[in-house]
């Protein structure tokens, strides 16, 4: 065990090794068990009647005909459910002055967006429930919808919801001081107005929930396609007044979540209420059309930015104004203000400049709520910063890479903090940029670009440096009063056959959490990976913890597993020493065997130790209490966040006549600290890049002025598909965090954080000789043709 972590020449050295996911074969073979697959005895199905209006008063609801329809067991309105569930409010205490109207499962008097669930029907089949929902008569009186961010903020504007005084949910200002003078004296000032469209997660598996109320035992079991089962255990317990220990939330196989499956959705709360009322299991699975109008959306920012640079191209200051439009209320329990807050705090983060001013306005409007989705705020902050850096470079006469070399925080300058107060332990911007430059053969690519331009072929190269927030401490939510844990827990046992069970609070949605936890446990304990079974996603069996969000599974969950495995190993060695009449220090556990630490000779197998402990404790020395199960918790206590960093490059070809962009290649060099499984890290990065390129070129939830979503289907909302995606080359720099033994930081959001920024810069680079310029994503053919003056 003396070899350093990540050294691959030890037995069971899994940390740092590309091993495949043990659950991949099962899922490929169709043996996945998603909530949709579950069938419980006496199970019923829920469907919802939804509002066709963006904003309206409910004048009356007539459910009589629906109640008489075949198979219908219950028709429930907002009033029926309000008595069962206490209201919730999507604010956090550390966002001073934030406001939002209280919410209930179904509305009582007012609908706030088109697609909001209004009445629930429970029937023997989903088809019957939908038939009955069509028979419900609701009289709506239309109210003026709030859909424009500027109109929403004018005094006396119509309000998005009657429970709020005005449409400003939250506002914050950051100012290091003296900005006006710096801008006035700067050699160059560049400005731009950016627009970031709304998009949504489009998980392969939609939201799904199956609530089962056992009235006899007073116990609620919820099978829930969520990434945060403990958070929901707490919420269901408190809002429905059921003891926490009597609420069990099980998250089985989950088909992607990306942050979308950790918010409270009205339908989910309604389904709990419906199960309580029916005293039978009730299932609800959002279909794709419902997903588009009820899953959270993300982004929707308009950012005005200025950057000041001196004559040599040194960045002096940034000044930004971000207006972001959320729904008619803020989501619960994480709010809809975190994205904007991260936008203004991450702005400029890779660079040395110290002068910064920002204003953030979070505005209500009558659309689906927005909230945390993969890379919360990062893509917006990164695209604005990186585009400003390119504009400033052009003004100062510097090549984009040279501009970054000049302005990035030097690798030896750490620890340091950002002008917005973020503390950086150790980042590697310069090393990453140098590696990227070599990887893409930058100079050759520029030469090729120039040669092709002469032939009328317009290619562009875009670079984007980024930081990513990972391993959050309670500074994220806990201090704001939310009962969202920043720690994780694991229970590790040696079974009677000498195998290992690990019950851990981080969860699996397809990214491979269970795989890396298994690697860490096997590595640190000294057993073969195949001997470790990892169990996640059940509040009744796994210890309470934060689960999966904000890139914390590897860094916090992984450290929890590491520390737990070390403790269990000590217990095993102590017991073996008692059996062998040796001292624990002379022994080691390697590949499932207790060996002499010095020579490596086998003394006894782990299976034999376990057999004796469980079945022949009579043979153990007096006072030996074998502790072959341990529970261990770990909470980050050093830096509030473990920042990661990296840089991306994007190479595109623009068809200047059609506005179509072919993405030729994309590169990422990132530093997530200790890499536990290179295969999974690369795939996380690639998947993240694809989502970022989706935002850059395809994905947008488009609304008309009346607040109607006009492209809410997969025929009209374009997700990135394989044919349009380039090869994505991934390189690494490894700077482990010293806050943990494991040294791992997150990597799940790195790809998304900067892909759209690199693409934006690449397209602008391609258009530059033609005089075109774009600051809006997605970069659709129509927008590109317009900026080229073709239409």
């Amino acid at each position, binding site marked *: 065990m003396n070899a350093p972590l990540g050294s691959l020449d030890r037995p069971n050295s899994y940390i740092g090794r590309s091993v495949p996911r043990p659950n991949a074969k099962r899922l490929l073979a169709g043996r996945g068990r998603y909530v949709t697959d579950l069938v419980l005895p006496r199970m019923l199905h829920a469907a919802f009647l939804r509002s066709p209006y963006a904003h309206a008063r409910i004048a009356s609801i007539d459910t009589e005909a629906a109640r008489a329809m075949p198979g219908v067991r219950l028709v429930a309105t907002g009033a029926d459910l309000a008595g069962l569930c206490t209201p919730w409010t999507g604010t956090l205490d550390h966002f001073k002055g934030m406001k939002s109207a209280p919410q209930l499962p179904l509305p009582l008097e007012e609908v706030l967006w088109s697609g909001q669930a209004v009445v629930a029907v429970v029937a023997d089949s*989903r088809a019957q429930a939908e038939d009955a929902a*069509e028979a419900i008569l609701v009289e709506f009186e239309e109210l003026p919808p709030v859909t424009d961010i500027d109109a929403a903020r004018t005094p006396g504007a119509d309000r998005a919801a009657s429970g709020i005084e005005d449409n400003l949910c939250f506002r914050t200002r950051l100012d290091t001081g003296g900005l006006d003078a710096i801008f006035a004296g700067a050699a160059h000032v560049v400005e731009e107005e950016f627009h970031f469209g709304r998009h949504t997660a489009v998980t392969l598996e939609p939201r799904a929930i199956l609530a089962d109320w056992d009235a006899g035992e007073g116990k609620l079991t919820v099978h829930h396609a969520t990434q945060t089962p403990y958070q929901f255990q707490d919420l269901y317990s408190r809002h429905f007044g059921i003891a926490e220990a009597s609420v069990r939330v099980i998250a089985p196989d989950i088909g992607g979540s990306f942050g979308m499956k950790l918010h409270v959705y009205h339908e989910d709360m309604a389904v709990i209420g419906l199960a309580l009322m029916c005293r039978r299991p009730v299932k609800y699975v959002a*279909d794709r059309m419902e997903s588009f109008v009820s899953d959270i959306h993300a982004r929707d920012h308009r950012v005005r930015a200025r950057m000041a640079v001196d004559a040599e191209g040194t960045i002096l200051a940034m000044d930004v104004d971000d207006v972001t439009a959320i729904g008619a209320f803020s989501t619960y329990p994480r709010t809809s203000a975190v994205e904007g807050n991260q936008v203004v705090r991450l702005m400029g983060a890779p660079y040395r400049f110290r002068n910064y001013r920002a204003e953030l306005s979070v505005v209500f409007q009558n659309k689906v709520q927005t909230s945390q989705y993969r890379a919360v705020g990062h893509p917006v902050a990164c695209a604005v910063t990186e585009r400003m850096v390119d504009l400033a470079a052009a003004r100062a006469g510097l090549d984009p890479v040279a501009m970054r070399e000049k302005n990035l925080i030097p690798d030896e300058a750490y620890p340091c903090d950002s002008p917005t107060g973020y503390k950086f332990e150790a980042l590697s911007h310069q090393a990453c940029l140098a590696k990227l430059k070599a990887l893409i053969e930058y100079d050759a690519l520029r030469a090729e670009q120039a040669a092709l331009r002469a032939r009328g072929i317009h290619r562009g190269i875009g670079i984007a440096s980024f930081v990513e927030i990972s391993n959050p401490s309670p500074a994220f939510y806990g201090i704001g009063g939310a009962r969202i844990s920043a720690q994780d827990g694991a229970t590790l046992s040696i079974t009677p056959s000498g195998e290992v069970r690990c019950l851990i609070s981080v969860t699996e949605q397809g990214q491979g959490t269970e795989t890396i936890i298994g690697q860490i446990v096997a590595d640190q304990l000294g057993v073969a990976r195949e001997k470790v079974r990892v169990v996640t996603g059940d509040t009744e069996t796994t210890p309470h913890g934060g689960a999966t969000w904000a890139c914390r599974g590897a860094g916090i969950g992984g450290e929890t597993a590491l520390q737990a495995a070390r403790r269990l190993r000590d217990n095993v060695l102590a017991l073996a020493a008692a059996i062998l009449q040796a001292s624990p220090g002379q022994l080691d556990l390697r590949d499932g065997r207790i060996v002499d630490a010095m020579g490596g000779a086998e003394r006894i197998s782990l299976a034999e130790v376990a057999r004796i402990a469980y079945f022949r404790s009579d043979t153990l020395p007096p006072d030996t209490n074998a502790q072959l199960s341990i529970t261990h918790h770990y909470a980050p206590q050093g830096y509030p966040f473990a920042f990661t960093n990296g840089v991306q490059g994007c190479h595109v070809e623009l068809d200047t006549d059609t506005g179509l962009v072919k993405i030729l290649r994309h590169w990422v060099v990132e530093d997530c600290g200790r890499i536990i499984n290179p295969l999974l890290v690369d795939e996380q990065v690639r998947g993240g890049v694809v989502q970022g390129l989706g935002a850059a070129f395809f994905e947008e939830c488009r609304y008309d002025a009346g607040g109607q979503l006009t492209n809410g289907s997969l025929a009209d909302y374009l997700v990135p*598909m394989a*044919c*349009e995606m380039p090869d994505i080359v991934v390189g690494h720099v490894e700077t482990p965090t010293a806050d943990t033994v494991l040294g791992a930081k997150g990597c799940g959001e790195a790809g998304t954080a900067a892909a759209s920024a690199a693409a934006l810069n690449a397209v602008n680079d391609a258009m530059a000789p033609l005089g075109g310029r774009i600051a809006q994503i997605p970069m*659709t*053919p*129509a927008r590109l043709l317009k900026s080229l003056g073709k*239409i």
Partner: protein
Amino acid sequence: MKARAFDYARPASVAEALTAFEQADGDASYIAGGQSLVPALALRLQAPARLVDIAHIAELRGIAVEEGWLRLGALTRHVELHDHPLVATHAPLLALAAPHVAHPAIRNRGTLGGSVALADPAAEFPAMLLAMDAEMEITGPEGSRRVPAGDFFQDLYQTALEPGELLVALHIPAAGPGHRCAFDEIARRRGDYALAGCGVMLTMPGDIVDEARIACLAVGSTPLRARAAEAALIGRRLDPDSIRKAQSALADDLDPPDDAEVPAAMRLHLARVLLGRLLGGMAEAA
């Protein structure tokens, strides 16, 4: 969403199909490949009381050349248009367009008759049938008739088919070696319905264009023949000047819809770009 309950009939002949339809008092729908109808049912955009499944009617199948006409049974699947040698020889525009229609799984089930009966203005095959002066063979309770493609596509999703009538086959004047064809379209993702598409068929015995047929898709409420653009080419060499004239003539031919995402001017622009590229490519190959 789940489709509303419906009753299902699977006739073995055209006559049985007509009867099965009639018995539902007008509240029925034929189903062929189901690639467009099934999503519409699932979304409850359509909810007929009865589905009459025509997929097993042998009379609706078959690809053959008879007396100078290529006959394509209505059940001819997209994949067959892509692969069949008779289609490649006698209706090359269909073969060229086929890879642009949706994705392989959909092309394995989707039928030519379904595409034509649906008459989506962005669909490839209807426009190509228009370019080739195809005739639609229709059978109904009142008997059979043949309708030229030009009269068949009437308005947005509206065709000459009366309720209960069945499209039996498509008849296309068989093209020969003298016909030169090209097709392309502009779509944001491979397999999507196009923003604009265009098929060209020229006869050019020497270097003068004798006959030109141009049809465009996704630039009007029906597939459109570009007669003005055709006229700009006929009797002329295929050179930059005639190509430019044909491109600019498209303004008289097309009537693109206007929406926030794709303005009318953009569709016209894209159709012009496409036509220019197709004709330019044909000029180079000549």
